[in-house]
């Protein structure tokens, strides 16, 4: 399974839950899985061209992820953050 850390900006979708699990797959598969469970969540992280939005950051472990098609391995942690962004 993939462990997922959900930032506060998306807690309105997850009912306040910040730690989730999803089946192993590419990042986009994980986001699709989350979107099925929490409709609307994915589009607020990536745009319609599957690009990560400018003020969202995804990390797999300590490595920044820039391509949602990158694969994940069993046990990986996908961390989603709202990046520093203006006032």
């Amino acid at each position: 399974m993939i462990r997922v850390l959900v930032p506060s900006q998306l807690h309105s979708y997850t009912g306040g839950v910040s730690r989730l699990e999803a089946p192993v797959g590419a990042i986009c598969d994980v986001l699709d899985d989350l979107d099925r469970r929490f409709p609307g969540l994915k589009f607020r992280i990536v745009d319609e061209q599957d690009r990560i939005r400018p003020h969202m950051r995804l990390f797999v472990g300590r490595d920044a992820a820039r391509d949602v098609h990158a694969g994940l391995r069993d046990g990986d942690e996908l961390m989603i953050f709202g990046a520093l962004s203006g006032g």
Partner: protein
Amino acid sequence: MAAMTELLIGTRKGAWTLSGDAARRDWRLEGPAFLGQIVNHYVADPRDTRIRMMAAKTGHLGPTIFRSADAGATWKEATVPPAFPKSADAATARAVGHTFWVQPGHASEPGVWWAGTSPPGLFVSEDDGATWTSVDGFNDDPMYPQWVPTDAGTPDGPLLNQVVIDPRDAAHMYIATSTAGVFESFDRASSWAPLNRGVEANFLPDPYPEFGQDAHFIALAPTRPDRIWQQNHCGVYRLDRPEVNWTRIGEAMPKEIGDIGFTIVPHPRDADTAWVFPMDGTDVWPRVSPGGRPAVYRTGDAGRIWTRQDRGFPREQGWFTVKRQAFCADAAEPLGLYLGATNGEVWMSGDEGESWRRLGAHLPEIYSLSIAPGP
């Protein structure tokens, strides 16, 4: 207090409502809803007063549409918000940065809504905003790259900032853009043609191009829909269809005030009357009230003469302005005018602009102020 007038307020940090009694004397502020969301537009549906639509995003999260079917008591998110079709070349493909404008469809088309976005895109919903589709007639027109140059835009990005529908004909539509001016469609958005003759674009080598203008706001005179008022980046204009040449009626404004602004409000019962809220468009474009003395200007003769109306506004050191969606009128007698300011204040006139009073203050920067039609 029986709410007879309700103002829907979209701000840079969420949405509020202001409810007024029958006399429009006592007002109650409620909110926020969606605190922290950037609410570019918040409107009610004149065809079904329970339905409300809100265009929102945050500094981090992507854009979406929130919908209410019970006058704002509860909200649902669009299951398919406005989005461009997926492209094979993701590096250059368009993506909606934010929805700027949501427009109830024609009275004969319940459930239909239109939306304008940044970058400029036109979208339609046939199910009260639940799902949205890209309108090929504009978004995929072969001229789109010329209408939306890659380096064009406002400080908040290039905009398709408005959709306007002829109340007499659902197929006759106008859109306003920040990159190519006004367009007209006679076939319900299947095809579009520029409608900018006579409108200046003083930031281009050809100051009177076929397209390229920055149309801040257009409004049809409700009692004479062939009359179009326009507050442009380069002045105030009027066009009486079927004419195609706009007249710069802002030339009659006092020179020290100028005719730059974001919005224009027509009188709902008098086709010759409209109001503007000028801002300082000189020098580096401060975009504040000229001289720090806020005022509206009213014309009662289709733009030949403009009269200053500033009673109640700060006499000095008032540096706010009013954005595109934040100036509106009710339908009462006498007419009520309402404006939401960039400093978070809401102002009202109950005597057609003669005098103004502040209904609320200390809100975030107001992006949108609209009237919810009464039940």
